[in-house]
């Protein structure tokens, strides 16, 4: 009874081909499917740990900011006469507006904390050393841009805290040599914090900085994939420890799919 099986498998083959056709189509024209496959199935050191999840956790926090920020932008009105009211409206009246604003507000802190944790992990593992120096520098840029995101976003509710913290913050930047006064002019858009300042901060906060951060994250991840992540330095089977002259006979647990996360 091999015949029916054969026809079925041929039909199935056709179905599969039809289903995969769009993927093949994309792959043929862009190579993106192959790239995705490479990304997903590339090898990573066998001893990576929970510490290694902090980078992607930071990315998640940033994506939360991007999504909630886009929704907030639909309701927020960047003008001194309307900003405060629109914030009140979002928080108290818009359906689930409180959740979106709350997530954006607290997500900002979580994002910053995670960047610091991630940085501490990288430092502790000595992961900034050759050949990953450049990725440390890109990361440091991300940290600074992230903090500027916080600074510019803080003004937007246009309440007393926001206003006076920004007055003082901008003045402080103005005390810097050379660039200081210039920065103040760029940020304020005038001598005083007012209409122009608010729209500038808004534009910087929702277009300029996030754009730069997205681009740098892209580069950052490109380098992570290209160079691979470091092993735990203290792990006995750290990849590239240079210790085993000959590749040691692999330990059993490494040949079989791991039983656990192997986080230790």
């Amino acid at each position, binding site marked *: 009874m091999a015949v029916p099986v054969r026809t079925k498998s041929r039909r199935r083959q056709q179905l599969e081909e039809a289903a995969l056709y769009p993927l093949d189509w994309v792959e043929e024209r862009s190579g993106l499917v192959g790239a995705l496959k490479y990304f997903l199935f590339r090898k990573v050191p066998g001893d990576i740990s929970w510490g290694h999840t902090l980078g992607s956790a930071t990315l998640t926090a940033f994506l939360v900011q991007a999504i909630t920020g886009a929704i907030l932008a639909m309701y927020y009105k960047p003008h001194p006469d309307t900003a405060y009211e629109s914030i*009140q409206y979002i928080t108290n009246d818009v359906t689930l507006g*409180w959740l979106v604003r709350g997530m954006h507000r607290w997500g900002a802190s979580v994002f910053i904390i995670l960047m610091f944790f991630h940085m501490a992990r990288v430092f*502790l593992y000595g992961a900034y*050393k050759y050949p*990953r120096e450049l990725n440390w520098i890109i990361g440091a840029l991300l940290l600074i841009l992230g903090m500027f995101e916080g600074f510019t976003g803080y003004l937007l509710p246009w309440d007393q805290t926001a206003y006076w913290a920004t007055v003082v913050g901008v003045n402080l930047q103005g*005390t810097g040599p050379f660039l200081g006064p210039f920065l103040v002019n760029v940020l304020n858009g005038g001598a005083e914090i007012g209409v122009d300042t608010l729209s500038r901060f808004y534009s910087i906060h929702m277009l300029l900085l996030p754009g730069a951060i997205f681009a740098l994250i892209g580069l950052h991840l490109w380098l992570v994939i290209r160079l691979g992540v470091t092993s735990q330095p203290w792990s006995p089977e750290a990849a590239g420890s*240079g210790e085993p002259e000959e590749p040691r006979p692999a330990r059993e647990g490494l040949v079989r799919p791991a039983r656990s996360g192997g986080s230790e």
Partner: protein
Amino acid sequence: MSVQRKKSRRVVEREAQFKQYRADVQSRGKPFYPWAMFHDAAMSTVVVGVIIGLACVWYFTSGEDPHDVGWLGPRYAEPADPGTTTFVPRPDWYFYFLFYLLRIFKWPDSVILGTVGIPTILMILLFALPFLDVRRERRIVRRPVAVTALLLTAASMGVLTYKGAVAEEATAAGSEAVEQLIEEQNLPEGVRPGLELFLRTCTSCHTYAGEGSSNLGAPDLTTIGDTGRSVEQFMQILREGPGAMPSFANLPEENLRSVGEFLEASKGAG
């Protein structure tokens, strides 16, 4: 045309090590999917959960009124008012450590350290780290300097952030303080309105004969009258807001004048 330069031993060594790393990962590594991706997804779920949790606690413990603070702070403060006379400038928490530096470094001698010096040094160290520490060693026990530096940095930033968070705000001085200052500082009775306004508005940054809290490196003003400036000149200073000081151009003219007269009369107890 290629100029053959001999690679230093360090370069040869590190290249070999990275090659070894690549080979090790190929031979005994694990695929990113599903193994590492599972951990990433789990951690990210926790992160989103924490963010939603914070948003809920913040919203459900606070109210529509700016004074209904809840556990995590109010939903918003009072609307911004450039003409206000009482305010406490306070940045978001991750700037507290910088903010607190300005309480340590005081105007005029060392405030530049707090506003520019230390932040610049920190930034340079941050970017230069991979070039300062070029040893190959990654094991923690063999990097005592790096680990100590990390612990010290983390501890001092933690302490500064904490101190910035609990830093004493200027408490509006009571009327006894006004009487006492007039007496002890030999102030003429006429500057009373200016003194009162000063105590409400300026002592969040400036100290005056022990009143107020020093902030942002602002100078003590107990003997500011000794600088020989006129009332008009002081008013001009207030309108301009030198350095980190905000401009008070939005205050009514007569208020500016009364503060100016008070400053002009401040020549200290002696």
